Each structure stands twice: as structure tokens, then as C-alpha cells.
């Protein structure tokens, strides 16, 4: 009985962290899907989202506003606005001027952007860990006995539900809306989409903005879940989310979701049944194996050589 509960608990831990990876991975996968490049500053945008949310929460607390829905909503809106503008700015500064050059050039400029943002936050907010107030406390306790109960905290449930809503909304947006159709067209053939009168610059900006907005949501949720933020907050998370995107098939949105969940569960199970020391070893071995046997990832489409 305990063993089963233990397994379920680790599964829940893995699903929570996996959902968050998935939210961040969307940003990588969308940008890759559209312009075929990796946005290495994406982890930093997620970190800035978390910081903005924290600043908003602290500000509201100073004003004496403590009603949870308002606090969360305001924090979310602030984080999304700031991160989205960052996403937009990253594209304008680091990608657009060098678009169409050798593939390595935007890669380097994005890494530069990432270093810049990280250090900017270092200077502006200090390098220490800042505690994130636990806004959503408590949770459900299921089954078991005194010694071991299955516990799902409200914040974990919030993370699942928010991720699910964001993912569904995004899928609907891509498949049904006008802008979504334009996104798909640009991702299939940028040049042709341009000839057909689609404002490709706008579409590419929109992609960065959507990815950044989702990263901001993840920043707020994970900030609350973990309990602290620091300027390196985005580095590891960005790396993991990137792995998730590649695992699921970079360029594919359901792939990012699947990749995130697989990675999250793999990590939780490794820490749970082997040792936390091997967590990263297992997740990155998984990546290498997938790349060896299925280079396009689990749900990725094989790349067709465009002539």
C-alpha cells in the first residue's frame, strides 16, 4: 500500500514539474517551428516573469491588498505584460537584424541576450535568493495512514489546471484563428507566406510574444511552488524545457507537452527510486537516446529538404 502511494506521489511530483517544463518548452518549440532557430534567451524571460510577479505581489501587499484572486490576477497580468514585451524586444534586437544570415549568428546573439538579461537582473535585483510568498497553501490529503499520505497541494493542482487551459487555448488559437493560420503558413514556408501577403514580421513577433507570455505564467506558478527566485532561476529550467521540446519533437506543440511530462516524470522517478544525484544524468541520457533513435523527437515530423 505504501509503495503504491509512494509511486503515485512521485508521479504527481513529476507531473507538476513536467507541466511547468511544458509551458516553458512551448516558447522554444514555437520559435523553432516558425523560424527554425532556438531562442536561448527564453529561460531568462521565464525568470523575468517570476521576478515581475514577485514585485507585483510585494507591491500589492504594501498597498494592503490581500484578496487572493486579485493578487494572483494582477501578478499574472504584470508578469505577462513585462515578459511579452521582453520577448518582443529579444526578437527585435537579437533576431530580426540578423535574420537570414548564417544560422550560428542569431544563436550567438540570443546567447548574448540571455547573458545580458541574467546580469541585468543580477544588478537590478541583487544576486540573492528572494523568498516568494506562499499564496496558495494547503492541499488535499488522500488515503494512507498517519505515516504516509498522498498529498496534492492546491498549488500543484493550480499548475495542472493552468497548464491544461493554456495548452488547450493555444491549440485552439493555432488551429482555428486567423493569426494561428498565418502562423502555420509562415512555419511551412516563410517566403511563400510573405508573397501571399502575410505580414511575416508581425507573425514572428507574435510567436515570441506568445511564447514569452506562457513562460511568464510558468514563472509565476513555479515561483510560488518552489518558494524562491534568483537571477539563475531561468538557466536550469530553460535547459530542461529545451530538452523537453527536443524530446517531444521540436516544432510540435503537443510534442512539447509530451516531452515536458516525460521529462518531469523521469526526473521524479529517478530521484524517487534511484537517487537525486542521477536525476540530470537520466534526463539527459534520455535526450541522447531519443536523438539517436528518433532524431526528430517523439512527435516531430521528419524534416523535408526544401529545394
Amino acid at each position: 500500500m505504501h509503495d503504491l502511494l509512494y509511486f503515485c506521489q512521485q508521479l504527481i511530483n513529476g507531473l507538476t514539474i513536467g507541466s511547468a517544463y511544458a509551458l516553458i518548452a512551448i516558447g522554444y518549440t514555437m520559435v523553432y517551428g516558425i523560424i527554425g532557430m532556438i531562442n536561448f534567451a527564453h529561460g531568462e524571460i521565464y525568470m523575468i516573469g517570476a521576478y515581475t510577479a514577485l514585485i507585483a505581489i510585494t507591491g500589492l501587499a504594501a498597498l494592503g491588498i490581500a484578496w487572493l484572486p486579485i493578487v494572483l490576477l494582477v501578478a499574472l497580468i504584470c508578469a505577462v505584460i513585462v515578459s511579452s514585451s521582453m520577448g518582443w524586444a529579444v526578437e527585435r534586437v537579437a533576431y530580426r537584424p540578423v535574420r537570414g544570415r548564417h544560422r550560428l549568428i542569431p544563436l550567438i546573439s540570443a546567447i548574448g541576450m540571455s547573458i545580458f538579461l541574467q546580469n541585468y537582473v543580477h544588478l537590478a535585483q541583487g544576486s540573492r535568493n528572494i523568498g516568494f510568498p506562499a499564496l496558495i497553501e494547503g492541499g488535499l490529503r488522500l488515503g494512507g495512514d498517519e505515516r504516509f499520505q498522498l498529498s496534492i497541494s492546491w498549488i500543484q493542482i493550480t499548475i495542472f489546471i493552468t497548464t491544461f487551459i493554456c495548452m488547450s487555448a493555444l491549440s485552439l488559437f493555432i488551429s482555428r484563428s486567423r493569426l494561428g493560420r498565418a502562423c502555420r503558413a509562415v512555419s511551412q514556408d516563410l517566403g511563400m507566406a510573405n508573397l501571399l501577403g502575410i505580414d511575416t514580421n508581425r507573425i514572428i513577433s507574435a510567436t515570441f510574444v506568445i511564447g514569452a507570455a506562457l513562460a511568464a505564467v510558468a514563472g509565476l506558478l513555479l515561483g510560488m511552488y518552489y518558494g524562491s527566485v534568483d537571477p539563475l532561476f531561468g538557466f536550469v529550467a530553460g535547459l530542461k524545457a529545451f530538452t523537453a521540446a527536443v524530446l517531444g519533437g521540436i516544432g510540435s506543440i503537443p510534442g512539447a507537452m509530451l516531452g515536458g511530462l516525460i521529462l518531469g516524470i523521469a526526473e521524479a522517478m529517478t530521484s524517487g527510486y534511484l537517487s537525486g544525484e542521477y536525476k540530470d544524468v537520466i534526463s539527459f541520457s534520455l535526450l541522447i537516446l531519443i536523438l539517436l533513435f528518433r532524431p526528430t523527437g517523439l512527435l516531430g515530423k521528419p524534416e523535408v529538404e526544401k529545394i
Partner: protein
Amino acid sequence: MNNYRRYALAASISAALMLPMAAAAEIRIGIAGPMTGPVAQYGDMQFSGARMAIQRINASGGVNGEMLEAVEVDDVCDPKQAVTVANRLVNEGVSFVVGHLCSSSTQPASDIYEDEGILMITPAATSPDITARGYELVFRTIGLDSMQGPVAAQHLISLEPERVAIVHDKQQYGEGIATAVRNELEEAGVNVVMFEGITAGDKDFSSLVTKLKQANVDYVYYGGYHPELGLILRQARQADLNATFMGPEGVGNKDINTIAGEASEGLLVTLPPSFDEKEENQELVKAFQDKGEDPSGPFVLTSYTAVQLIADGIEQAGSTDPFEVAEALREGTFETPIGTVSYNENGDMEAFEFVVYEWHADGSKTPVN
């Protein structure tokens, strides 16, 4: 080619002319520690203590008539950065260093200082390896993990735990002290059910906490620093883990309260005794308070002492040659704010005490027993 040679010659001549002039005016002391990065608050303690010592020594006429001058560098507690700043101190012509702070950055930096003939006193690095290599110019004003581990282990043993878990951050300091505690506990027949590493900088400890819960432990010893332990405490509380945590001095600072909040109540910490509460230090404590600084951090007065020892060593040796100063430090006995200091052959203090404190959610601490 010829031109380059000429420039190089001109540069070296002017350098040769300038260096002795600078050295005659003052004794330059490098202060190396983290000004930025996740453990910068310990760096603040170190810089605050060292600056105060330099200021007070200069105010009372310097050392043998020469003034002390600080050269401050930031190693971010990163071993790579530590090597870079150590080389910079070499280039600055520094003969004495107070630093570094983290054991993992002290070790590579000490290689450079030893090779270049620079005397180093670390006010905070507790890894036994640092002084175990027979280096001539390496000293410390703090105890060793091998002294701190047993204090923690003895305290745990006295609490008669049924099941203990030991977690560490896989770094030199954390894993070293965790291993020392485990060995001591196992020798005493305590049931250590888990010994596991985490990754420093990680944020998600839910799996670890679940594992601790499953293992049904009543005490957890953590070897590492506060950013990770703060999160573990907080996530453990969320998951209803009922265990008492204990950690080394790397977790005992007020930042753990901002991360863990209420969950930091009741945490046990081994710390150097509160030197700032000693009677004979009250005048010094007041000097810190007048400057608006807090002398209660574990490394403030150890850093102060490191500077003072360098000054005393120079005075006793009657020379600023690091080797002669090292000789004087090994031979002499010194009255300092952290007590009477005398050194053994390795450069470790003959005696250094660690005390167990209970930490509170408001950032204060009370001695246990």
C-alpha cells in the same frame, strides 16, 4: 618585432620603477570572497569584518608605521572565478590575502597563492583538505569540518534519533561535512537510512521530500548552503514532513528565513560561538554598530581576526615577507576577538569550538544546552 621588444622593455622598466614606490607606502591586503552570487551575504560578513580591522589598524598608526590597503575582489564562490581573481591579486602585487570563503574556491586559489609566495588566511573555508597538503602559507581563522561534523553528530546522537537521513549538495563543503556526520553517527550505531546528494541550484525538491517521508525519518542532516535547504524546508512543510532538520554554519543566516519562512523554526545549526556576545569584544561590537553594520554573522569577526593576525604577524616578524610572517604565526600565540589563537604545523587553529543553536522563524537563534 623590434618595436614590441622596445615597448616591452619600456613597460617592464616603468613597472619596476613604480612597484617599489607603491610597496613602500603601504601593505596591500587582498580580500577575496563573494560580493555577488547566491552566497553573497557571507561575503558581506567577510568584507565588513576585514574592512573594520583595516580601518582600526590604520587609525592606530598602521603596522610598523605602514598603512594597510585593501584590494577587494569578487570570486562569486565559483572555483573558476576564484582562480581568475587569485591571479589578479598576484598581478596587483599583493602579499597577503584574507579569503576565500567557500571551500571549493579556496582550494584552487590557495594553489596559486602558495606558488606565488602569498600568505592566505581564510576566515570561513572549513574543508580539511585545504590545510592537509603541507602548504606553508595557508592558514585559517575557522574550524574544520572534521571538528564541526562531530559536534553535529554528537548532538544528534544525544537526541536518540530512530532514523536519520543525510542529504548534501555534492560540493566539497557540503559533502565533506555530511560524510563526517554520517561516519560518526554510524560509529555510534545510529540508523542512517539515507545518504543522498542533490544538485546545488536546483529548485524542485518534491521528490526528495516524498522520499524522506517514505523513509519515515525523524532527523535530517543537510550538508550545504541555505538556498537549497531553505527550499527543502519549505517544500517539506508543504508536504507535512515531520522531521527536524540540522545543518552546518553554511545554512545559518537570516536569508534562510526569507526563503523558508515559518518552516525555518526549530532548525538546528552548528555555528562558531557568537563572538559578538563576548564581554571583551563589546567595544569592537559598538564600532560595528556605529557604522551601521551587524557583527553577529559567523564570519565577521573571523575576518576581522584574519586581518589582525596578518598585522600581528608582520609586527612580530619585523618584516612583510610572507614566509617570515608565516613563521611568526606558527610560533606565536595571539589574543584576538575570536579568542587565543595559536597554529599547528598545517596552519589550522589548535582549538576551535562549534556550538549547536536552534534557529527561529524571525532570524534569531538560541543556544541549545
